C-alpha cells in the first residue's frame, strides 16, 4: 500500500494544488482582489505567485524525499516509477500553473 502511494502521491499533490489555486483564483475574482494594489503588482497576483511557489517547493521536496535514503522504496521498480511520477508532478505544476505569471487575472 505504501509503495503504491509512493507512485500516486506526487500527482495527487499536483491535483490538490492545481484545484486549490484554481479555487483561489475564482474566489479572488469574485471578491475583487485584483483591484487591491500592492508594491509591484496587485495583491491577487502576489497571492497567486506565492501559492504557485509553495506548490513548486512541495513538489521539489517530494522529489528529494523519494530520492532520500529514509523515504525511498527498497524495490527498484517502485523507486524508479515513483521518481518518474514525481518528476511528472513537478513538470505538471510548472506547466499547468504557468498562466499565474502570464495571463490577465480576471475578465
Amino acid at each position, binding site marked *: 500500500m505504501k509503495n503504491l502511494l509512493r507512485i500516486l502521491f506526487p500527482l495527487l499533490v499536483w491535483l490538490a494544488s492545481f484545484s486549490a489555486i484554481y479555487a483561489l483564483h475564482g474566489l479572488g475574482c469574485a471578491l475583487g482582489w485584483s483591484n487591491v494594489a500592492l508594491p509591484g503588482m496587485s495583491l491577487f497576483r502576489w497571492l497567486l505567485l506565492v501559492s504557485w511557489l509553495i506548490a513548486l517547493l512541495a513538489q521539489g521536496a517530494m522529489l528529494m524525499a523519494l530520492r532520500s535514503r529514509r523515504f525511498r522504496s527498497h524495490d527498484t521498480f517502485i523507486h524508479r516509477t515513483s521518481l518518474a511520477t514525481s518528476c511528472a508532478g513537478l513538470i505538471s505544476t510548472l506547466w499547468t500553473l504557468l498562466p499565474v505569471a502570464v*495571463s490577465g487575472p480576471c475578465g
Partner: protein
Amino acid sequence: MLIGAGLILFLMAGLVIAAFRVRRPAVDDARSEKVWILGLGLGFSMAVLAALLAYGLVAGERLMPRAAADLVRVEAEARQWAWRFAYDDRPGYFTENLLHIPAGRPVDVAITSTDVVHSFWVPRLAGKLDAIPGHVNVLRIEADAPGTYRGVTAEYNGEGYSRHVFTVEAHDAAGWAAFVAEETP
C-alpha cells in the same frame, strides 16, 4: 496548426510503416528507451506542445477585451427560441432576433438567459459565449465592415434548436447615428 498536425500524422504513419518494412540490427532496450521514450515521447511532444501553448496563451491575451473610448454596449437576452436585444445608447428600445451594431467599433454584448442555457455565436464576428440563467457574460465583438451577419444559438436548448437563429446588422457611422436617434433604419 493544420499543417503542423498533418506533418506529425505523416511522421507517425511513416514510423509505423517503417517498422514493418525496414530491416534493422538489434538494439538493446536501454538505447531504444532513450530514443523512443525520452527523445520522441517526452522531448518531441513537450517541445511541440510548449510552442502550441505559448501561441494559445498569447492569442488568448490578444483577444481579451481592452478598455476603449468608443465602446458600445448592448444586451442580449435569450429564451426558447428567440433573442431579445436592448441598447444602452437607446434606452427602452428592444429588437427581436435582430441585433443592430455600429461597424468598425468595439461592441460589448452582455449575454444572459431567462430559461435554459443558450449560446451566442456570430461565427464571422467572434467565438461563442453561453447565455446562462442568473449570470451575465460579456462578449466583445467588432464588425470590420457594414453588412448583415448570421448568428446562431450554439448549445442544444430543446426542440426549436435548429431554427433558433438571429441576424446582426452592422451599420456605418451615419446609419448607427440614425438608429440611436430613434429613427429605426
